[in-house]
């Protein structure tokens, strides 16, 4: 039983880590684009990215399940040409997680970028620096709290994810069974002691992360005032 407990948490943490790292890499260019681009249809991209915030996870999970299923063209295409199966696999719940958590990362980073005065970017350009240099040396170092908030929120939110994973991953031990689903599963089997163990762990874990986020922001505000 203990083995299953640790295996479940291992999958939860692996999923959260991978989601966070990949979303950080995708989130920076996306948030940069959404903040600075003059593209007219930007608002549509923004709305699409933010959809998971308002959409029931089961709806997102349902459509992803259909998309991933080998009975439909995309799943069929992936299976045939790349031998990739996304329904009821770890890769599948990772893809689901990426889509589901995209707004948490992108919105945090975008808030960071928008709060920077436009003149910082302009000043760097007038010093002959390229967009990339400006991004790495000037913009990103000055939105550190937003970056850390984005990372922590994405990580914590992935740990707590339930609906999307259940829909597309099911509850396969060692593959797609994560801690939040384990709680549900144990309650269904009336195994309250085990459900309590998972829940307490999740509760403490999330609590520590939230303290960390507020701690960072407070530290940053203090640092700014000096």
């Amino acid at each position: 039983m203990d083995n299953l407990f640790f295996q479940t948490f291992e999958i939860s943490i692996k999923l959260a880590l991978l989601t966070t790292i990949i979303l950080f890499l995708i989130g920076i260019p996306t948030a940069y684009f959404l903040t600075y681009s003059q593209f007219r249809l930007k608002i549509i991209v923004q709305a699409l990215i933010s959809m998971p915030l308002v959409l029931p996870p089961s709806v997102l999970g349902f459509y992803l399940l259909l998309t991933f299923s080998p009975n439909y063209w995309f799943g069929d295409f992936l299976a045939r040409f790349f031998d990739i199966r996304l329904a009821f696999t770890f890769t599948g719940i990772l893809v689901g997680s990426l889509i589901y958590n995209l707004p948490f990362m992108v919105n945090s980073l975008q808030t960071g970028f928008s709060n920077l005065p436009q003149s910082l970017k302009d000043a760097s350009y007038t010093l002959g620096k390229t967009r990339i240099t400006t991004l790495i040396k000037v913009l990103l170092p000055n939105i550190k709290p937003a970056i850390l908030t984005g990372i922590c929120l994405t990580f914590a939110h992935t740990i707590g994810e339930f609906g999307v994973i259940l829909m597309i991953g099911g509850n396969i031990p060692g593959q797609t069974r994560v801690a939040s689903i384990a709680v549900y599963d144990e309650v269904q089997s009336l195994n309250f002691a085990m459900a309590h163990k998972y829940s307490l762990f999740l509760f403490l874990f999330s609590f520590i992360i939230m303290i960390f986020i507020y701690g960072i922001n407070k530290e940053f505000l203090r640092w700014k005032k000096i």
Partner: protein
Amino acid sequence: MEKNLIDLHLIKSIHTIEGIIELDVELEIPEHGFITLFGKSGVGKTTILRMISGLTKPDSGYIKVGEEDWFNSSKELNIKTQLRNIGFVFQDYALFPNMTVEDHLFYAQKQKDVNHVNDLLNIFNLEELKKRKPDTLSGGQKQRAAVARALARKPKILLLDEPLSALDSETRQILQQEIITAHRNFSATTILVSHDIDEISRLADKVYVISKGRIIISGKPEIVFDNKEPGIESSFNGRISSVSGNKLTVDLNEEKHNFRNDDQIKITPA
């Protein structure tokens, strides 16, 4: 006669509090010169600096610097800001919160030139502050750091957007002296936006008075802003209604300014 470094004609519609106005400005600026753009806020002075730096695109016209075309609407040419050899001092300083004063100067350089950085730290009295970040500096110190940063890459052209407007008069005078010293030492062709007549008189060789998007008067500051004799009062709102004798009184920024009308001043009716 010194040859012109900058030769430009810029046309752009801009939104101001008084509605949309068309900015239409021609300037010829000699190499190593120090000129000022004077006028009330919202007449497009900052936009002119932004167009020279490439941060704002003119609707049409041209900017020629030496032999290089930086912008030319008929040739569809618009060189990127990064490739224009300028230094820009922003009204809000635009210092990078993550960098120390010294970091700023090194960041601005293409190749690290420690001597030049030390010269700048020296001229602008920043040696003691070189390890400090902008948040720990006073307004005057930030301004010094911003001007030093703009000069760190040895720009051909230095653009100063009301750099001293937020400072008290004592700090302003010290900084004016530092700007004069820097201009003498590094001789970058300088364009200053200002609405402080004393400042313009101390710093600039020539002043261009801008109203409603046009240059209405240009000349040496001491001639343009001649307040010694009472002039004949005539209301002037960016348009010349009448010229009486050798005096004009112009109402700019809700203040009255006297201008002497003689052949040393170029007057362009709007």
